[in-house]
């Protein structure tokens, strides 16, 4: 997403530069040689078309919807392009440490899979929340969940994280379905 914003930003800058160049060029040309307009963009045709189109016409509405939707896309793209790194405490002054949410999830996942009676597990993590979904063939949710929560909490407490993420554990077990 961060690459996408950089790309969009480049294209927008290019578009603004192009529009500005066209505006300056056409106005200057019109001033210098009023008989030879237009130079590049066929603006007299645009002017006549706009003078004959009402605000409630279909084409204006389509254009407005297109502009609003592309604006929304830009808003969303720039809103989701934030950094998701997990901060760790600074070991010394002038040293800052982060880790990726992915590696936090990897550590928790390895730990959970190594517990007894866990068949498989998937973990998603962010700086605020660690979510574990484990499945177990032999133990029910009531038995396994407190144990897993406790051990994951211990594991997270051992890591020097700046903010303690909330931990949620869900166990999926065939024993609960009977």
């Amino acid at each position, binding site marked *: 997403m961060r690459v996408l914003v950089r790309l969009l930003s480049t294209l927008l800058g290019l578009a603004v*530069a192009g529009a*500005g160049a066209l505006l300056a060029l056409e106005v200057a040309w019109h001033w210098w040689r009023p008989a030879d307009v237009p130079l590049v963009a066929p603006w007299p045709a645009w*002017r006549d078309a706009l*003078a004959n189109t009402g605000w409630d016409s279909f084409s204006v509405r389509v254009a407005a919807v297109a502009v609003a939707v592309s604006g929304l896309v830009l808003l969303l793209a720039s809103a989701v392009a934030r950094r998701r790194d997990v901060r760790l405490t600074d070991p010394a002054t*002038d*040293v800052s440490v982060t880790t990726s949410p992915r590696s936090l999830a*990897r550590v928790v996942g390895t730990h959970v899979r190594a517990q007894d009676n866990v068949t498989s597990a998937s973990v998603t993590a962010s700086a605020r929340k660690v979510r574990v979904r484990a499945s177990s063939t032999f133990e029910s949710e009531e038995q396994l969940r407190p144990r897993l929560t406790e051990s994951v909490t211990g594991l997270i407490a051992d890591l020097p994280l700046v903010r303690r993420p909330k931990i949620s554990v869900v166990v999926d077990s065939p024993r609960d379905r009977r």
Partner: protein
Amino acid sequence: MSRPASAKALARSQGTERSLTFVTGLLALLAGSAVLVLGAGWFGTYRARRPVLDPAVTEWLAAREPVVLRVVAIVAGLALLVFGLWWCFRSLRPEAKPDLRLDRTEGRALTVTAGALSAAVQADTEAVDGVTKAKVRSVGDPGEPALRLQVWLREGTDLRRVWRDLDAEVLARARTALGVETLPVAVRIELGASPRRRVR
């Protein structure tokens, strides 16, 4: 509140690009919605039927001094051109890798190139127990360079011990070798990376 140099070095800043994209998106959304509302007749059915290039506007413009309008339009166009080019090249340029200037005195300047510095620190970092791979580069302004270390750790490595080793051996050594008091460092740690296996 200004963040310390080491925190700034953690990742490339994208604030300007993000804000400009956000503002453009907001303006486009507002303009599109305004035209839709106008066309739907919320400001009066009669107003919705008027042409987009309203004769009232063209008459108002025709009553102005043409020289002023033209000069304003040309200056605005040139300003947009300069701003757009700045925006475009700012988004495109790669992240700087500043050299470390240890001595700026005239005639005896001493510079450690970014490549030499990164190679030395990288070799030291990879020698720390538990580190499988490291990438090092210099980041920041030429006046205030910092180091960014990306470190991959083996599964089950004790983080605190690695930090102690990094600080005591790698960074202290870099500071002593360079003869600087402070060297802002950002470390990005990848935990539990699977070890490389050789296929036999």
